[in-house]
């Protein structure tokens, strides 16, 4: 049994320690918002927060996150500036990559005060969206930053 905290809830998971966190979330905890895209950390669809930092959940194991605080897309508040911006700018098409994209962005925006859109966009070049929503993502990033400034976050 390995204990972990996901979206503020404590879980005891009975799975081998080398199981990727991605599959623990999806198969053991039923949190399927976190998506499998590549399994090798290349596409970003599985991104979650581990102690507040973006991690590719396909590339960290259950034992790596023992006792740590994990946040998934389901745990990112619905009024979070990133979720609001993604709705306002209508970024999403098929939507499969977007939970990971939003989690990575939320973490980047948290890294320091006054995030700059251009730098954030550059830091988002390791996620893949096959619908090609990147132009809308750029708008979403700018809107999320503006919302954060307005809300004083």
């Amino acid at each position: 049994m390995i204990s972990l905290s996901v979206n503020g809830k404590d879980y005891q998971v009975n799975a081998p320690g080398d199981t990727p966190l991605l599959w623990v979330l999806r198969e053991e905890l039923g949190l399927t918002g976190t998506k499998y895209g590549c399994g090798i950390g290349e596409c970003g669809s599985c991104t979650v927060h581990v102690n507040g930092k973006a991690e590719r959940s396909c590339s960290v194991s259950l034992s790596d996150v023992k006792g740590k605080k994990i946040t998934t897309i389901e745990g990112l508040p619905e009024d979070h500036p990133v979720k609001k911006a993604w709705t306002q700018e209508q970024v999403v098409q098929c939507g499969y990559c977007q939970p990971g994209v939003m989690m990575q962005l939320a973490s980047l925006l948290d890294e320091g005060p006054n995030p700059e859109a251009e730098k954030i966009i550059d830091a988002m070049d390791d996620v893949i969206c096959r619908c090609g929503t990147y132009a809308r993502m750029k708008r979403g990033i700018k809107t999320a930053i503006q919302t954060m400034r307005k809300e004083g976050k």
Partner: protein
Amino acid sequence: MERSMTRRAFLKKSMAATGLTIAVSVTPFGFKLLNASGKGQIEGFEPSAWFEITPDNRISITIGPSEMGQGTHTSLAMVIADELEADWSLVKVHQGEARKAFINPILHSQLAVASASVRGFYAPLRKVGAAGRAVLVKAAAATWKVPEKDCEAINGLVRLKKGNQSLTYGELCLKAAKLPLPKDPRLKKESEFRYMGKFIPRLDIPPKVSGKAVYGIDFKVPDMLFAVLDRPPAYGAKPISFDQKAAEAVKGVKKVFPIPQGVVVCAESLDAAWKGRDALHVKWDKGALPEMDNAYIEKSLMADLDKPGSIAENKGDAKKALLGAAKKVNATYFVPFVAHANMEPMNCTAHVRKDGCDIWAPTQGQTVPQMIASKITGLPIEKIAVHTTYMGTGLGRRAAPDFIIEALIIGKVLGKPVKVIWTREEDMKHDLYRAAMSHRIEAGLDDRGRLTAWSHKAVAGSIMKDINPKGIKNGVDIMSLWGLLDFPNSIENRISYDIPNFLVHFLISDLPIPVAPWRSVQNGPNAFVIESFMDELAHAAGKDPLDFRLEALKTNKRATRVLEAVAGIADWGKSLPKGQGRGIAQHACFGSYLAQVADVTVNEKDGTFKVDRVFAAVDCGPAVNPFNIKTQIEGAIVMALSTVLREEVMFSNGGVKSANFDDYNPIRITEIPDIEVHIVKNNDKIGGIGEPGVPPLAPAVGNAIFNATGARLRRIPMTPERVLEALKA
């Protein structure tokens, strides 16, 4: 989108006489409207779409085509809601099950392909909405005992024109349900549209942003098993041996058995299934063509250009016209295999029982999987339920039933619900790719530099051999030629130019690599060839590429208009700084007309280039959902640019070497140009929008590189090495 409603649930609900249910059926003779309220199943009537208004003032709309990100569910709901004059905030959309009735009138199948959903259902859904509005107004007039002309439907209410009385659709629905429908209800004028042509947020965004949307890979049934396959590493490879006992010894593994697709491991958990597969140690033979790699493929397709091939079209006398031409130009082009690389790998959940079969799948098609399931299970069609989930892109890949077939075969063995999941590597290596093509063209210009003759030979694997083998006539696979030619009864995928002497030869390649439609099908590769070559011809004629095209388009008004529109917004003809260039291209497919201008900056030292801006003008006829039109075209431009920059499937030892996103690397956010999409207003015939943004992009970029440097790129991807090579040529 709500979870799909089963046929039985729908009928049960409507049997309970809960409100007004109006359905439309598309028949070969036109549309048939039906007031299905409280009637349950009506003999011989299969509704293609319906909406239901209940006394609690909710409106539920059920639609047949799959939603894969292309926005169809929102756009089609907008069509019904607009004609119905419904309050959008009360509308809910349901994905329909597999039903004969949902057959798309253009495709003759329930299938979301060929950008056909809105253009196939636009007309019938307008009628169904308008019929609803008519009976609701009638019900209100009867309630108030006034003439119908004194009542008007406004945003979910019927209002008495004089005075302030009004009734909601919910309040009127039971009364309206008893009324006969008008045979030919009055459609709105464009000026009366409430939703069509306006910005409407997508209905599927809230569940997708919250993370709650259920995709195929997320679907679960109680007591479900998981199955994974060890698949052949080379085309035609068969297993020599595998360690069944070792796999079965893995904790949680339930069953191990070979099927034609590979060796199956079924287990209680996905983790156990994968561990079981690792223990199999399958030894495969070398397969059908172990020497095949990329060099072999390119050589084979190029060598095929020297073989005779079949005549696909012979208009005028191209040979004679070429002999008499003042100037002749010829060129050879090549396009490699590219992968769909859907973000959600293939998967399917199936439950085959003695009394019925359920399929839960991220599928673009419903009719074909239902028919195949009936054959595999021996059950009648009506016992096969196809439940369509959300899907992580479709791109044409999910129109093929291969991933559903294997789940059914496995499900039949198990007799229990089973979910088959592919890894990214399986998805990449067992894709049905966009067909690689080789092309050779010769064209003639007269003494005034006008295009008079065009002789074209193309080679590709056959797309139709799996989906419509009877459609292959005289060795010609018309879908491989889409963009040049179309089926005899259609011109929508035909070359836009009117060339008096036009000869096309085609040869089906015998390479063992499976191919399938890929966003815009072969319009993409063929437009790259046609529109790059048109640029070569313009240059040879000493004419501006825009003027040369306009001249060759002759009477093609819609193509002319989008070219002129894009030239206008891009300020075509303005001078650019050194190192920069711009290219133009146009292409029509699936009933829509697109033109694009690309601006590039080229580094002649290292062969790299950046696409700075892309301007696009589109005429798709009535613009139901303008925001969606723009975002679909943006996405298509980005995906097409990905194939221009570096997408190419790598092969070795007779199989696929590309495995994952580290060696097959799609475009990223930092590589996209600024994109400006302009909709050319037009109420001509409605066209599709998911795919037509793809074809003009590659030639526009290649033409821009030529404009900047004089280097002609006749092959994608346009890697730095190829750009340097072209610069030297």
